């Protein structure tokens, strides 16, 4: 097959490209330049582009750099800032996958006549007996990334290859070492690639006005004031900046034109037994009303529950999921779909 492999300059996509070459495919590498700001730390810096280019040269495959900084800013960074400023908790990796990697890049691969597009994500694409595509968790539970791929439907999966999904991270590094790839020992990317570690509020406040407001308790009584809502996300316990006797959590964030109210409560007051969703996507058919598990964080524990219309009913209460976060449904290690917490 003619395969376009997205090479971030990390070890996973390097090994993905190497495996495709090894399997005899006609492989072309592409690196997307996504962000050029000062806070660039992750999968898109100039140094990473150069790593990708050098690995491609070592594998003797063509390699191209596409400059998507404008698209990335519009589709990922601006919505991220807007979400925090509005009291929601965005997932920029999911937005990037949806709009850039499995949106723009898949379209581009199609126009260029590629049969498939590949990435270094840890998940497994399979085809069942009915010819339907399935997405399973990656073989390395600690590195599974199926959660951030929840938006892939049949149309995308038909041309997506995830060549390292059946490997553990240790296997990936071992293969990279054996091949002498310069990315073999590169640390995993963490955090949000365009925001430095611990710099989220500063980043948001550099791009949008601070939204100060009151802290209130669950009865509505004002118990303090904060200087900017971007510092807070539902479920947060640390860094509230107010002294309270017992452990207290952010249980609600409410931003309107007047003010940005952060509600503080106990752990009990954070618990919910249902999650309302929007923008539901399914890998294949909707699962119907049957037992499944839901995952509300990139590496969160699966929680048993059911999907009823656009609402997940949990078997046991769990901490509230912040609006904007992804909720993915699984049947065992099979991804069924997901949605955005409303």
């Amino acid at each position, binding site marked *: 097959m003619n395969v376009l492999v997205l090479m971030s300059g990390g070890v996973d996509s390097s090994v993905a490209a190497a495996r495709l070459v090894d399997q005899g495919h006609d492989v072309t590498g592409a690196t997307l*330049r996504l962000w050029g700001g000062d806070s660039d730390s992750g999968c898109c810096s100039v140094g990473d582009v150069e790593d990708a280019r050098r690995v491609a040269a070592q594998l003797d495959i*063509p390699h*191209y750099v*596409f400059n998507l900084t404008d*698209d990335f800013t519009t589709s990922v960074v601006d919505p991220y800032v807007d979400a925090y400023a509005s009291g929601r908790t965005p997932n920029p990796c999911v937005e990037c996958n949806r709009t850039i990697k499995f949106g723009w890049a898949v379209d581009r691969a199609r126009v260029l006549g590629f049969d498939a597009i590949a990435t270094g994500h840890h998940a497994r694409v399979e085809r069942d007996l009915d010819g339907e595509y399935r997405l399973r968790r990656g073989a390395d539970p600690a590195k599974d990334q199926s959660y951030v791929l929840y938006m892939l439907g049949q149309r995308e999966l038909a041309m997506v290859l995830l060549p390292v999904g059946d490997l553990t991270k240790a296997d990936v590094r071992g293969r990279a070492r054996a091949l002498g790839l310069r990315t073999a020992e590169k640390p995993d990317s963490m955090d949000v690639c365009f925001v430095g570690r611990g710099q989220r509020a500063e980043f948001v406040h550099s791009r949008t006005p601070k939204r100060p407001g009151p802290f209130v308790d669950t009865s509505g009584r004002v118990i303090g004031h904060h200087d900017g809502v971007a510092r807070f996300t539902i479920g947060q316990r640390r860094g509230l900046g107010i002294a309270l006797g017992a452990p207290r959590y952010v249980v609600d964030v409410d931003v309107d034109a007047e003010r940005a109210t952060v509600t503080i409560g106990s752990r009990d007051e954070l618990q919910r037994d249902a999650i309302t969703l929007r923008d539901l996507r399914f890998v294949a058919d909707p699962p119907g009303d049957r037992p499944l598990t839901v995952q509300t964080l990139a590496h969160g524990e699966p929680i048993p529950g059911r999907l009823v219309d656009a609402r997940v009913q949990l078997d046991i209460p769990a901490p509230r999921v912040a609006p904007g976060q992804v909720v993915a449904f699984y049947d065992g290690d099979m991804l069924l779909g997901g949605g955005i917490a409303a």
Partner: protein
Amino acid sequence: MSGTYLDYAASTPMRPEAIAAMEPYLSGVFANPSGIHRAAQAAKTALEEAREVIAEQLGARPGEVVFTGGGTEADNLAVEGGARRRRDVGAQDGVVTTAIEHKGVLAAVERLGREGFAVTVVGVDSGGVVDLGALAAALDARTAVVSVMLVNNEVGTVQPLDDVAALVRERAPNAVLHTDAVQAVPWLDVASHAQGVDLIAVSAHKFGGPKGTGVLVVRDGVALTPLIEGGGQERGLRAGTVNVAGAVAMAAAMRTAAEQRTVEVRRIGDLRDRLQQGLLAIPDAFSNGSQIHKVAGNCHVGFRGVEAETLLVALDLEDVYAAAGSSCSSGATEPSHVLAAMGVPRDDALASIRLSLGSASTSDDVDRALGIIPSAVAGLRARAGILA
């Protein structure tokens, strides 16, 4: 390199004459030309001989030739050095340039703007030739520097430097006139085109010399504030040990380019015409830049509905090497500032590519390009249509 190279405006292969000329200066005659001993004198002699050759080709005196680290540095030195000197000595605070200059000029002008100079950027007509009326209106006694390129790097248009010079002398008596002639050497007699100009920038790798070697002609009596200071080399205008081997190779390349110019302009012009006619036969194709004022090696065309960035990748996968805009900005999704200045609609600008021919271009290259580009365009259009 096995592919079909159509990007001579970005860089050219070194001419054999240039490679042969520089070889003795890599390890044999290697000494620092500033020394006293005979080893240094040999290097100094070679450097000065190179300077003489280049001076003659550019219509300058040897003492007017300043070696630099390339075209961009020469442009920076001319524009920034010329403006600062005039501000400090004569209190001129105006800088005038055109909207289609190379970034080596535009970035320097922007920096001067941040330093407080009054910047005027003059537009061009739809063919890519400077608007002389607007230029005239921008000039006055406070103008310190005027910078107008000789040949545009994207659409290949030749600018009317004689007319520009006449306007500058008449209206801006205190200004120095600079031209970025980086793209001109293979195609034009720079000496005659730039005879009325005070500062001329050229770059060796655009005509078969090595990268990292350029020249700024600084006419006698034209004072500049240097950008790089140190040991006082190059009349104090560009400190640092001169790249002797590069200078020697540049001289050889320039001499060869001049000797072959008349024949090559005709030969390459014929190739370009055939290439362009073939490409314009593709449905919904168009060309950019005035055909009358274009140098022989430039073919700038677009195919509606086909993104240039995608087409360049498709062509590269077929071993055809082309560019969009200038090589510095290819890959960017913003349309070229040159095409924007010419009033080319944004969608057309994003669909435009530059095919540039040069001394090693052959009829086979054109055959191959015409065998591949039309089908690549058709394939991209078909698949984009299915997608939409």
